[in-house]
């Protein structure tokens, strides 16, 4: 059965607890708990006793020719063992190289080398954590330099060779499509949709390119705006094209609207899923 939930944010804590009947699952950023005191971990376990909890890592950066940081991986493994989430996820990104921490998720060159690096890192991640991760596509403001493969081919090869499920971030896909000249629907349909079991939805805003280089704009996936209608349409298209149940998580990192507005966005996601499933059923019956 499809489910809809939200990313855990301290600013939304009270509202989330008061509205659990409208929230099927809560996604927690794992890194926020790597050095957490006991009472904070206990609070997380309390949350898990009331709603499904999934963990989302943001600092391993497995899509890299460089081996992942074993210290951080160990902390994540400990957290997974303590909290026992339903699943955990990380990003197809690199986050550090040559002793430099980028500070966020960066798209590596999409090459056979980064595919091989990613597959090996993902193998280690599963071995240490004891639970296979879902892998998420990222948004990138820069067309990944020194790439020889397109995004869909690169992601498909990593997931096939590691045999892992995908967390498909629809706003990331939407932003990359618009920023680099693809139709979002075409990019969606070129992804390995049979591997998608979880979805992120969020919003963003248009930013200007450097004036000395271009007068164009690019879409920034900033997580502080409402989900645009086009992303709900992509969610409907996804639901129309996958058979397995989907877990959809709304990501909102700031500029919080009223919680009723947030709940409305969860309901819009439910509607999109329903419509997509109905379209799938119509197609199946007509065949």
């Amino acid at each position: 059965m499809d489910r809809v939930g939200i990313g855990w944010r301290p600013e939304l804590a009270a509202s989330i607890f008061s509205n659990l009947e409208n929230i099927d699952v809560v996604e927690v950023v794992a890194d926020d708990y790597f050095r957490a005191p006991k009472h904070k971990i206990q609070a997380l376990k309390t949350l898990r006793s009331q709603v499904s909890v999934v963990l989302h890592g943001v600092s391993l950066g497995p899509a890299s020719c460089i081996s992942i940081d074993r210290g951080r991986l160990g902390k994540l493994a400990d957290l997974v063992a303590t909290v026992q989430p339903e699943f955990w996820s990380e990003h197809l990104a690199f986050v550090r190289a040559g002793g430099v921490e980028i500070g966020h998720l960066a798209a590596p060159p999409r090459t056979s080398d980064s595919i091989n690096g990613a597959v090996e890192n993902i193998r280690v991640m599963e071995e240490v954590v004891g639970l296979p991760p879902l892998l998420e596509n990222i948004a990138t403001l820069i067309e990944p330099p020194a790439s020889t493969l397109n995004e869909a081919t690169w992601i498909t090869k990593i997931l096939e060779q590691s045999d892992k499920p995908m967390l498909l971030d629809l706003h990331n896909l939407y932003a990359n499509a618009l920023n680099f000249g693809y139709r979002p629907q075409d990019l969606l349909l070129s992804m390995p949709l049979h591997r998608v079991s979880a979805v992120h939805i969020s919003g963003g805003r248009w930013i200007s390119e450097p004036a000395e280089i271009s007068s164009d704009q690019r879409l920034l996936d900033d997580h502080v705006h409402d989900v645009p209608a086009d992303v709900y349409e992509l969610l409907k298209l996804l639901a129309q094209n996958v058979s397995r149940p989907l877990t959809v998580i709304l990501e909102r990192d700031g500029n919080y609207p009223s919680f009723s507005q947030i709940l409305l966005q969860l309901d819009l996601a439910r509607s999109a899923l329903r419509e997509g499933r109905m379209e799938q059923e119509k197609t199946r019956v007509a065949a």
Partner: protein
Amino acid sequence: MSSIDVETFLARLYTDRNALDHFLSDPIRVLNSYPLAEEEKELLLRLDRSGLVLAFNSFAKKRETLQRRKKGKSFWQRMRPRANSA
């Protein structure tokens, strides 16, 4: 050919303002100072310059936010009732 060298080069461009400015003003000289294969240099010369500047700014802002959060109050500190509140 080492993709680790390419990632190292990119990480530097994404985080070091001087490295970014030097690359934008004289990419060939900068690329020649890194242990990169010729085909890597050729690909990097065609790099998306606009996106590079946007990515640099975005990563810098993220690092600033992370630093502020590390110095800021924890969840429990924010939830603690203030003195004289209703």
